[in-house]
């Protein structure tokens, strides 16, 4: 027989358990979310060897300021806490822990660099903190099966290389290819992409692959090396300074290969002008964004809203810097995800909405291009279109290629 006390105890315990169980349909908001604010964090190399990318963090802060001036997202202002990690992974770990444990941010947004993001990926996944739209093209960050809290953003370098390889295969099947690549994950991803497509024929088609270190003053000797192999096709997987040197040197030594230039270095202002515009005629690249210096976008409404933003919120910044257009798009994507979350700003919901972007257009993407994600696709941008340099600007040709 049950005593009254035992029944009371059991009932009390049951009620307590029910009270402690989280409400199923309304999960608690993420830390850093109040009625008036959403606090998000990131690390950026404001100092050190990669400090040129610091402008990405500044642009994003300016973009969120614009959104806040317009009333924020569903009534909440976005507060971006952007910390310097000098591109040093141990520092990134320290700063990310500060953001998550001390500043109590809801999520990590667009932290920059492959090594820094690699260093924090386990920690963030273990603690179920969204690591959204990492600023690197390394292909390993779109892996929802193993890292459900980490999402990429850029089209991966490997994808881009595959597109070039397919183009070579279709248009120049007996090409003799020389590759110049930066000796790091960025450069090596291009080799992987080429290998993906050429397969067993890789050794026959790529007559020479040569690398450089970012600490080298020039890549002149590599270019002479490549020329001497008799290659007629040249894949340039180099960051802007070295890409400019490569284009110029190839022209100056009288080497006239068909050039495929990485999208990382397609800026007319920062790469082709320093190399000499006439020396780059005929080069090909894969594009996904509108180049702000290109006259054909002069009256484009997307670029016009961007210019208005620049004039008002970043009047001193250069309007030819691709890092700025990149950051503008990333910040807009972040805002879209937060908008889709509505009133429920739990970390689970944020991740769910990040994986639920459907045909989201960005003002600075090429016409027809959209962002798409799903629970099995954590690479938002996967389209590109080839473009040829005509001496003034990039001329798009062919269709959008989805990799």
């Amino acid at each position, binding site marked *: 027989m049950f005593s009254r006390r035992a029944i009371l105890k059991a009932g009390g315990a049951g009620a307590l358990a029910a009270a402690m169980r989280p409400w199923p349909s309304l999960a608690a908001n993420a830390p850093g979310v109040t009625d008036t604010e959403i606090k998000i964090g990131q690390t950026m190399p*404001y*100092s*050190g*060897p990669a*400090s040129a990318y*610091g402008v990405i*963090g*500044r642009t994003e*802060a300016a973009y969120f300021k614009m959104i806040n001036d317009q009333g924020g997202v569903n009534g909440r202002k976005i507060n971006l806490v*952007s*910390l*310097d990690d*000098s*591109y*040093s*992974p*141990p520092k990134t*770990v*320290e700063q990310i*822990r*500060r953001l*998550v*444990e*001390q500043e109590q941010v809801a999520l990590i947004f667009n932290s920059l*660099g*492959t*090594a*820094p993001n*690699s*260093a924090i990926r*386990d*920690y963030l996944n273990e603690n179920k903190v969204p690591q959204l739209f990492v600023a690197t093209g390394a292909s390993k960050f779109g892996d929802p099966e193993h890292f459900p809290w980490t999402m990429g953003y850029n089209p991966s370098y490997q994808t881009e290389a595959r597109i070039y390889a397919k183009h070579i295969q279709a248009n120049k099947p007996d090409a003799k290819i020389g590759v110049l690549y930066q*000796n*790091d*994950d960025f450069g*090596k991803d291009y080799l992987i992409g080429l290998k993906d497509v050429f397969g067993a024929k890789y050794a026959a088609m790529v007559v020479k692959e040569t690398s450089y*270190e970012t*600490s080298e003053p020039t890549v002149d000797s590599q270019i002479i090396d490549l020329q001497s192999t008799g290659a007629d096709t040249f894949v340039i997987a180099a960051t802007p300074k070295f890409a400019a040197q490569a284009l110029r040197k190839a022209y100056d030594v009288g080497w006239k290969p068909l050039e495929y230039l990485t999208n990382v270095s397609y800026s007319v202002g920062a790469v082709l002008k320093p190399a000499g515009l006439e020396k780059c005629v005929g080069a090909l690249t894969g594009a996904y964004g509108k180049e702000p210096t290109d006259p054909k976008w002069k009256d484009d409404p997307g670029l016009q809203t961007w210019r208005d933003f620049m004039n008002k919120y970043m009047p001193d910044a250069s309007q030819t810097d691709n890092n700025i257009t990149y950051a503008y798009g990333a910040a807009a994507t972040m805002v879209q995800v937060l908008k889709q979350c509505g009133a429920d700003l739990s970390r689970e919901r944020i991740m769910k909405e990040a994986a639920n972007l459907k045909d989201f257009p960005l003002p600075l993407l090429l016409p027809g291009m959209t962002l798409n994600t799903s629970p099995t696709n954590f690479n938002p941008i996967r389209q590109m279109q080839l473009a040829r340099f005509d001496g003034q600007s990039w001329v798009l040709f062919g269709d959008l290629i989805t990799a």
Partner: protein
Amino acid sequence: MRDAPAAATPERAGFSPARVAAIGLALVCVLGLPFVASGYQTFQLSQVVIYAIALLGLNLLTGYNGQISLGHGAFFAIGGYAAAILIVKFGVPYGVAVPIAGVVCFGAGFLFGLPALRLGALYLALATFALAVAAPQLLKFKAFDAFTGGVQGLLLAKPKAPLGLPLTRDQWLYFLCLGCAVPLFWAAANLVNSRIGRALVAIRDHPIAAETMGVDAALYKTTTFGISAAYTGVAGALMSLIVGFVSPDSFGLFLSLSLVVGIVVGGLASIPGVVVGALFIEFVPNFADRLSDVLGESAKAMPWAIYGILLISIMYAMPSGAAGAARKLAQAVVWRRREK
């Protein structure tokens, strides 16, 4: 004059009640801090302990033996990679990998010490500087990719507290670092207070006189280089454990320079000084970062300028580092008492 005997034999002062109380208090703080600090702060404290070990190694070499090294970041990297490779590629337990990393670095330091014998002060500084510049590049070297993971680096699983100890990972790692630091500090203190320590200082102050007295300068200098590298290597190994990741970008040139800044701020040829140096290199850059945030969004490039200003002011106020300033202060107190 009451205090004169105590002042005349300062080494006995170690047993005065005040000193015992101070040491006790410090002990309680060091052991108790991780239980009141957050996980993030405990992580920072572990980094302080690690930097202190590395600075101790560098101070043995530069402070006591007078060999300037601008390249200790390279030994830090070798230690970090040695431990990471042993753990990830060979499945060695971390308790074994850390001492092995120290031994590997001893070997590397000893070997580097041999050519360093022929290089005088500034030339040695340049040679070691070259080592620091080369280290990240060598770590990327293609032939080593299978071991080093190339530019992708290596990920390590963070160790958990063993034997069911009721400690979080951060607390356990802190005590692990502390457990490495205590014997290393004890050994260093004994070393510099021994015959060998006096020989090291003699070589620094007057090499020719030291050799005349029968000190084998070559042996002492290379061995010191080895020991110094071993300390720094252990620190690097511990760092890779608490960060859980190594890559060439982790060991940039700035790390080497930070270590030099650390021993100069703490005070050359001082063992307690390295703790101050470690606190400096861990917390002052963060402090400068926050200070520049106060100045506004446009000041994102300011932290290092603020850091520089802080560094210059500290060197102006304490030209012989924290240890030197403490010594001066203690002397002033003693003199004040004598005058009474």
